[in-house]
């Protein structure tokens, strides 16, 4: 059994150590907010936080996550109060929405490490996340807004 701490909840799973974290989250634990897009770390739809870093869960063996802290989009906030979620709502960012869990998880690391990101920072942080609907201009705008919300004391 592999022990995982996901969104501050303990879980035990009987999975092969090589099984990607993505499929453990989705198919074993029912946490379907994290998406499958490519299976080879190309699109970022499966991005989750492993000890705070935006790992691509589709290529991360679950063994790497054993006894570590995992946060998925379900745990970004319990009530849509993360500055990014507020900004996403305000800017009407998403379209089909399928990539957005990954976009949010990537953006969350950026905001933590660079509370006032430039456009170049956004390019350097977010180019691993593909959006086929092309919401990039709005994601960019929303990240700037989220930075502002965060600075002004919004919950993070």
């Amino acid at each position, binding site marked *: 059994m592999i022990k995982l701490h996901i969104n501050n909840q303990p879980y035990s799973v009987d999975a092969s150590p090589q*099984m990607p974290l993505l499929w453990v989250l989705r198919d074993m634990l029912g946490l*379907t907010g994290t998406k499958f897009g*490519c*299976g080879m770390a190309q699109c970022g739809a499966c991005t989750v936080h492993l000890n705070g870093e935006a790992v691509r869960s589709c290529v991360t063996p679950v063994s790497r996550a054993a006894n570590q802290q995992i946060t998925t989009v379900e745990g970004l906030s319990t009530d849509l109060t993360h500055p990014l979620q507020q900004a996403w709502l305000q800017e009407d960012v998403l379209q089909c929405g399928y990539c957005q869990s990954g976009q949010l998880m990537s953006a969350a690391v950026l905001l933590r490490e660079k509370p006032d990101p430039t456009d170049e920072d956004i390019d350097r942080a977010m180019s691993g996340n*593909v959006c086929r609907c092309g919401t*990039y201009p709005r994601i960019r705008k929303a990240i700037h807004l989220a930075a502002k919300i965060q600075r002004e004391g919004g919950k993070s």
Partner: protein
Amino acid sequence: MNNPSTVSRRKFLQTTTTFAGGLLIPFFVSAGAKRMGMLGALGAAEAAGADSAVAFAPNAYLGIGRDNSVHIILAHVEMGQGVWTTLPMLIADELDCDWNKIKVGHAPPAQPYYHTMFGIQITGGSSTTWSEFDRYRQAGATARAVMVAAAAQQWGVAPEACSTADGYVIYNDKKLSYGELADAAAKIPPPANVPLKPASEWKYIGKGVKRLDTSEKINGKARFGMDVQFPGLLTAVIARPPVFGAQLKRFDAAKAKTVAGVRQVVAVPSGVAVIADHFWAAKQGREALVVEWDIEPSLQIDTPGQWAAYRGLTEQRGAVAAKAGDAQDALSKAADKVDVEYTLPYLAHACMEPLNCTVKIANDKCEIWTGTQMPGLDQGAAAKILGFKPEQVEVHTMFLGGGFGRRATAASDFVSEAVEVAKASGKAVKTVWTREDDIRGGYYRPAFLHRVRVGLGEDKMPVAWHHSIVGQSILAGTPFEAGVKDGIDGASVEGVNDSPYMGHVPNHLIELHSPKNKIPVLWWRSVGHTHTAFVMETMIDQLAHSAGKDPVEYRRTLLKDHKRPLSALNLAAEKAGWGTPLPAGHFRGIAVHDSFGSAVAQVAEVSVEKGKVRVHRVVCAIDCGLAVNPDGVAAQMESGIIFGLTAFLYGNISLDKGRVRQGNFHDYKMVRMQEAPAIEVFIVPSTEKMGGAGEPGVPPLAPAVANALFAATGKRIRNLPVKPEDLS
């Protein structure tokens, strides 16, 4: 009329089939009402009498719960384009309900949800908003009239004396909420032909509201087809032929069955299904599967060979799509001639959510959960496979993680396959495509070759235009084949034969060749316009330059009698500062194109560094008539621009002995954040007929960028995707 609550689901489907589509609003009956209850409160509301269960449903499109919840059922599906919000806006403006009480759900396949123009249940053709503009407003207005009647009855006053606002009927100091009135309203027959509000009273239409689907799509709760789960559900991954049209020769499942979690390996018409406890096991099982295929030599197409064959066809006479004067004679006499060829490759849709479909067959019932643009056809396809009647098949349409046309195949390809898997295995199975399955799975935008021969007169204006188009028909060989008239699939020539420019060319001949092969092709966001706009708008740019005219001025001359493209062109040029100085190394290009009832013009600002194209800014103007949700229209323009840019820079599906070379996002690349231009969208204030928004943003992008690249490098791009060597 039966009492709605006593009509069975089967009866519902039977009765509703007697209604024509159009603007008639059939009475809504129990099955759908139950569904609305389900939508309302995650199943809990199904318990009889629960407050959020629908107590009042005057028609198929909305119902009202005792808790004031307004349940809106969408005849069209949400795949990113925003109908989850736009259709409720139409209802809300007539119903005067509380916007925050709205709950939205997808409709089951049923006649009331047939497209008002296309006659089947389909989301496509950038048509949702204009095609539902009257029907959904009418649905809201009818419901409001019943609410008012119920309140008036209760108060003993004239309905005309009552007003409505935010989910209440009001009379002087009295007010009753729609929820309080729902049970009484259910007893009142809905009136016909309720008058609609004048535009001056619209609160939402033309102004816009925030999307209704954001919250659940940013906290992981939204359920796409991929997210369907229930106890006992297995996952299948299919081994499909490596070459289109190849047949299964034999397979050996022994090794696959040793993979932990693999439960079953079964042959299905499309290949061999490996069924397992979860996706990972199924995929590993497929890797361990030994399969042999029969591959006929004729199936082993190479892309260069295919282009050569297409090129050869341009020397032959094709089916005539449009004709005026004598193009060939005029060409031979023209003072100046242009004879150029364009190639535009196969393109995959690459929706972010890989295709998937969940099927559960139990006794005489089949349930399907998937993201689909044509739930009704899928229902019929499933019924046919199972020997069921359509009403024995229930389709639950989930959120679509992108569609772009891929989730609308006439053959219901991925749904049929999933039904076959469930049938063959006897289990409830979710069939999941990997990204490689998706990229290599066909249903591409057909590869097209255009040869354009233009003769110029003394005034440098075109006097002859001979245009030969070669590419597979999307409709041929499908149940929609009747759409091919006299050898012309309109989807192959749209944008050329109806180009506003063609009217200025006294001698023109547009010919089409529709070669056949086994590569499945399909509509791909903006369909024929994906290639025709590129050809027409780069040709016009070239002709403008040969005439020594400014490309905007040249187009203005040709479009002077075409109000919509002209207004879009003028607005885009103005907002982009056409003709004003740019930073060093930056260049502009423009294109304008009419498609799906809207005209869109775009100005691209580009630079080229070491063969690398950078698009810095795109200014876009659209005339779509009334923009119901202006920010939604802007979002679709942005989306179309990025989609078009991906195709221009990277889009290419190529074949090597019939095998698709590309497989995932490393070799079928997408535009990413660092390449995304700044985009500005302007909507032409317009009273023209309503057009679409989902697709028309795509066509002008590639020619606008190519024209900017000509300004930058003097090179004409005629083969997509652009290659660095084409720019030096």
